[in-house]
């Protein structure tokens, strides 16, 4: 007890006669709102600096010198302040402000997208004058004009509140829109021919308090009163932004960001905001397909599943279970991933499963390294960035890190093969050759001695304590070994350091948690550690550790994989080595694709099963922190497309097995019981209000971080009120949160009660006979009671604790005592040394990603697809000159795999000896050059014009031709 307990920590103010306690420094408008008094506003936004631009929030304030009108968004509360928000003087001022704002406003509400959810409409009705005295002609502009491919501007409607312009500068760091001209002629616009090409442009549409900014994908699609919505989590990348998913007539029409304090603060990136178009796409698969000769033809679920069961069964019987493999799963919800993991291990009998397609980090590292949350990273003081360009791959994490750097003094120390979007913000940005980041990390941690002044300076920023490291895969053209070795070096040198994963795929972290990785079982345990526990829960487990994606495709190419399941995986587009993917798929015997679209890979399959995707299914997803949040269904899947876990259950049944789950809730209960990292995360807890921010499993929390403890729930924070802060305050208030049960309607899926689940499941598949035995046999999820499960929460992560058995068919099992396996701990893998020497004619390849790529969701979203424009090869100007090439000329680029013709451009952000390409853009590219079985990929450049001597200027003409 300190003597400070008596000190008053709040500020007392009086609002309309009521005494209210406010936080010191809090703005009056925010304090009033927390106390239940809504002061009208346009420019104020809780996630941005106040500017006092619109004067709508003007109220009478008395700080002892008599009442005066003041903008409540600009003044912090002060002890004894008296505020009148409804006095005649305040009312008159509000009337005046609104009358002025409406002078220039066209009042074309009937044809305005915002009409019905418009703060200007609503506040005029609530606080404005009944009539305007303005009878003159209003100003006119051409309308609307495009600010970018995604955002349109209606300048007549703009009230100059400065929200969009502030957002673009303050939050996104892309000040491409600005106030132009002055006075009555002021307008928001871009520089001529320099569009508002920001990855975050859609946020301005959401926060614009009028209908001035319009999103092209939503324009004229619906009226607010037609919209129906649920709250869900974006799975377009692994940040896991919370958003409202809105539909009209069973079609998704809009995503809006929801303010979740630990994650996205209300922001979305444009990919996550607009990729709902892919869900609605015409090209979605609506019925199962089977191969008849050269063609894939539509068929019934019954026939397709029989074909899959026979194909996989025959391969298993003839060539053994290890001839089967499952690739993919990052698209899946946690529940799907768990059921597929169980299916692979028990029914198929193989450990050849991998949710990553050779483009991530080894699962043992992702799951085993001590974790940091986004909040912890932002509060860390110094963060080491070791991974991809965060803005391109995890956009809203970029916003959070940028905010921490720009507004909170976070220092970034970046280790990367080329310049990234964060390089300019970094306190130190160090370059390494592809494949040599471990060496650079070593030099950095040993104080930078002998490694040059830059490294020494960066080292001085690190202090001596533990640090937070953002860890990912900087380049797909190098093996992840060096990054893992760098992490090991960091952990050894700075015990207590924590890691924030920068893997990008939607639910890749959930898929890994659920055991979709070779040698990993659900709950972050290794096959060896979890053998007893899961044998008891599941009945059987594969003997040997299986192959990862690279191993699987290599084995397939050698004819050793006879049955391959692609779970939303498209190795021909996504695997870093297209040649290996092609050979593997060609020789893989029987191939099944579970997918929403026909992709390059699923086109080669023997059977294609149509899957329900985001927006069409309930469940949970896990973000890069390990945070688990809820997915909610909004629309029904097209045709007979099914949810992935149901497909697994049905497939198992065709193969004569019963996975013992009939609803999402049952699956989650089984996860909670069997997966040690998730113990205690009951489905009841997932339905609480705190779960709206996402819940961190105990195994994630069990780390010592330097920053403040990660927040599991901040429902009391002012910022977390989505409605108030995001311009969502005017939507119909039906965001499904607590009510929507985990197991509730997946269209034709089982209901939340579970009763009748078998029937509806049977109906869903149109095959009653096959599902008759649901609910019989063993149900693994009936073991240890809830009390034990929660008790296990705290310590399951650290060491095996005596708890109830994970499952074990009924009461007997529950009585027996058994140790939950410990969750995986990171250990430095024994690996090869450094990469081979680079010969002086070659450059070492870096293949990084862009936000807009040829991935399915972008490719099938008409508004986004044109933004994937490809990119030239980028080379240091000195190298270009050394090789006798001109920037902008077409060149021949060769690796051990193939030769491509590309445009080469000079880029000072690429160090000498390195060549940088963008991965997965339309057409041939990096994947054709990369050899995934080597540590690095070296390439050579030649001029295209054979005849011209090296170093001549003749390549200019080539450039104009290209």
């Amino acid at each position, binding site marked *: 007890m300190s003597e400070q307990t008596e000190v008053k920590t709040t500020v007392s103010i009086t609002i309309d006669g009521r005494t209210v306690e406010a936080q010191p420094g809090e703005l009056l408008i925010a304090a009033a709102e927390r106390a239940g008094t809504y002061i009208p506003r346009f420019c104020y936004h809780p996630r941005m600096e106040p500017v006092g631009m619109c004067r709508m929030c003007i109220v009478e304030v008395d700080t002892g010198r008599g009442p005066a009108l003041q903008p409540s968004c600009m003044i912090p509360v002060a002890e004894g302040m008296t505020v009148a928000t409804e006095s005649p003087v305040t009312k008159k001022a509000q009337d005046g402000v609104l009358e002025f704002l409406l002078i220039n406003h066209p009042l074309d509400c009937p044809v305005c997208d915002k009409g019905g959810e418009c703060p200007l409409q609503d506040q005029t009705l609530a606080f404005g004058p009944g009539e305007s005295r303005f009878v003159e002609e209003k100003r006119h502009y051409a309308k609307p004009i495009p600010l970018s491919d995604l955002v349109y501007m209606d300048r007549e409607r703009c009230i100059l509140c400065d929200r969009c312009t502030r957002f673009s500068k303050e939050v996104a760091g*892309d*000040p*491409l829109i*600005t106030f132009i*001209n*002055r006075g009555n002629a002021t307008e928001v*616009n*871009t*520089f001529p021919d*320099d569009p508002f090409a920001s990855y975050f442009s859609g946020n301005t549409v959401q926060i614009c308090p009028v209908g001035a900014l319009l999103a092209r994908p939503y324009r004229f699609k619906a009226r607010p009163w037609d919209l129906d919505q649920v709250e869900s989590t974006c799975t377009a990348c692994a940040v896991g932004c919370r958003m409202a998913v809105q539909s009209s007539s069973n079609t998704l029409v809009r995503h809006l960001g929801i303010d979740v304090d630990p994650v996205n603060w209300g922001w979305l990136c444009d990919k996550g905001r607009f990729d709902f178009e892919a869900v609605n796409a015409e090209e979605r698969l609506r019925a199962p397909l089977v191969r008849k000769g050269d063609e894939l033809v539509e068929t019934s679920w019954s026939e397709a599943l029989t074909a899959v069961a026979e194909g996989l069964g025959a391969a298993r019987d003839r060539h053994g279970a290890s001839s089967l493999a499952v690739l993919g799963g990052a698209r899946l919800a946690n529940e799907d991933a768990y059921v597929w993991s169980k299916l692979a291990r028990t029914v198929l009998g193989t450990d050849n499963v991998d949710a990553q397609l050779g483009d991530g980090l080894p699962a043992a590292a992702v799951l085993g390294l001590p974790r940091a949350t986004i909040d912890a990273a932002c509060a860390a003081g110094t963060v080491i960035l070791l991974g991809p360009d965060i803005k391109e791959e995890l956009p809203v994490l970029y916003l959070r890190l940028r905010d921490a750097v720009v507004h909170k003094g976070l220092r970034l120390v970046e280790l990367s093969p080329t310049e990234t979007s964060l390089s300019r913000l970094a306190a130190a940005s160090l370059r390494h050759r592809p494949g040599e980041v471990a060496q650079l990390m070593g030099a950095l941690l040993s104080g930078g001695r002998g490694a040059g002044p830059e490294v020494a300076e960066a080292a001085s920023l690190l202090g001596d304590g533990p640090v937070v490291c953002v860890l990912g895969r900087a380049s797909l053209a190098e093996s992840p070994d060096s990054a893992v070795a760098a992490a090991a070096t960091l952990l050894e040198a700075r015990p207590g350091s924590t890691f924030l994963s920068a893997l990008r795929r939607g639910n890749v972290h959930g898929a890994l948690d659920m055991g979709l990785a070779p040698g990993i079982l659900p709950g972050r345990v290794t096959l060896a550690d979890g053998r007893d526990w899961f044998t008891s829960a599941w009945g059987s487990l594969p003997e040997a550790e299986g192959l990862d994606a690279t191993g699987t495709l290599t084995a397939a190419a050698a004819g050793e994989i006879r049955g391959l399941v692609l779970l939303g995986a498209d190795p021909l587009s996504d695997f870093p080595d297209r040649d290996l993917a092609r050979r593997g798929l060609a020789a893989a015997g029987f191939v099944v694709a579970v997918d929403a679209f026909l992709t390059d890979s699923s086109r080669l399959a023997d059977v294609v099963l149509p899957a329900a995707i985001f927006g069409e299914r309930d469940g949970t997803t896990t973000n890069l922190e390990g945070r688990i949040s809820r997915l909610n269904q909004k629309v029904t899947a097209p045709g007979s497309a099914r949810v992935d876990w149901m497909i697994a259950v049905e497939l198992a049944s065709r193969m004569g097995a019963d996975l013992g789950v009939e609803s999402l809730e049952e699956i989650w209960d089984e996860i909670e019981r069997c997966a040690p990292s998730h113990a205690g995360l009951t489905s009841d807890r997932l339905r609480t209000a705190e779960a709206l921010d996402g819940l961190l499993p105990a195994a994630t929390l069990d780390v010592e971080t330097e920053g403040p403890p990660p927040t599991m729930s901040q429902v009391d924070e002012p910022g977390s009120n989505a409605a108030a802060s995001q311009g969502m305050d005017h939507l119909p208030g039906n965001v499904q949160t607590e009510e929507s049960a985990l197991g509730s309607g997946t269209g034709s899926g089982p209901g939340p009660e579970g009763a009748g689940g078998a029937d509806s499941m049977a109906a869903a598949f149109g095959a009653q006979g096959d599902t008759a035995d649901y609910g019989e046999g063993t149900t693994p999820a009936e073991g240890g009671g809830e009390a034990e499960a929660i008790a296990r929460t705290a310590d399951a992560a650290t060491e095996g604790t005596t708890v109830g058995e994970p499952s074990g068919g009924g009461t007997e099992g529950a009585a027996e005592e058994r140790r939950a396996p410990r969750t995986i701990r990171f250990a430095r893998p024994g690996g090869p040394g450094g990469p081979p020497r680079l010969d002086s004619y070659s450059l070492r390849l870096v293949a990084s990603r862009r936000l807009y790529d040829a991935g399915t969701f972008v490719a099938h979203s008409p508004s986004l697809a044109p933004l994937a424009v490809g990119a030239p090869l980028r080379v240091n100007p000195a190298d270009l000159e050394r090789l006798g090439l001109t920037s902008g000329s077409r060149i021949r680029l060769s690796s051990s795999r193939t030769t491509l013709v590309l445009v080469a451009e000079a880029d000072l952000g690429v160090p000498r000896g390195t060549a940088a390409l963008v991965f997965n853009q339309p057409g041939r590219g990096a994947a054709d050059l990369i050899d995934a079985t080597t540590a690095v990929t070296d390439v050579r450049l030649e001029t295209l014009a054979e005849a011209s001597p090296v170093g001549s200027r003749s390549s200019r003409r080539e450039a104009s031709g290209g």
Partner: protein
Amino acid sequence: MARLSPENEVLAGQIIARYPRSRSALIPLLHVAQQQDGWVTDEAMAHIGELLGLTPAEVLGTCSFYEMFRREPVGTYLVNVCTNISCQLLGGEELLEHVEQRLGVKAGATTADGMFTVEDVECIAACTEAPCLQVNYRYFHRITHQGFDALVDDLRAGRRSDEIPPHGTTTRLRQTIPAGRWAGVGAVGLAPEVG
């Protein structure tokens, strides 16, 4: 010419170096651009953005706030004729008509030879000297029609180019005062750069 010339880029570097934050050099650099071309071109704004680490939009935002930065071509001589009340009472409108007739263009336009741009403006704060006009912001008080004709003849003949430099020319009055004349002021940090 569009972007800043090499000489002006050097000058820009010197100007930027005067400020603790490079962004503060934005308005001086816009003057340099306007001096170079008589108006501020888009290319010059983009160039200034590069030099200051700003987006072209940010440069445009500032540039367009100040009406004396012109973003359209302007004649060598910008003729602003006041038609506000005091001048109007003493023949300002007739003066504007005469100017338009004499130069053969309407207010808002530029003569074909690029010599003159005519504009009508609101009060330019010389009401006691009405009617009045400005050429490149130099005042001509109580100007008669004949007086204006003589002025045009002089300007065309280049007789007054010292007094009225081409549109956009900045003066460097402060900078040409010898440092010694600022005795005492330098100590508080106001010493001007010479040149």
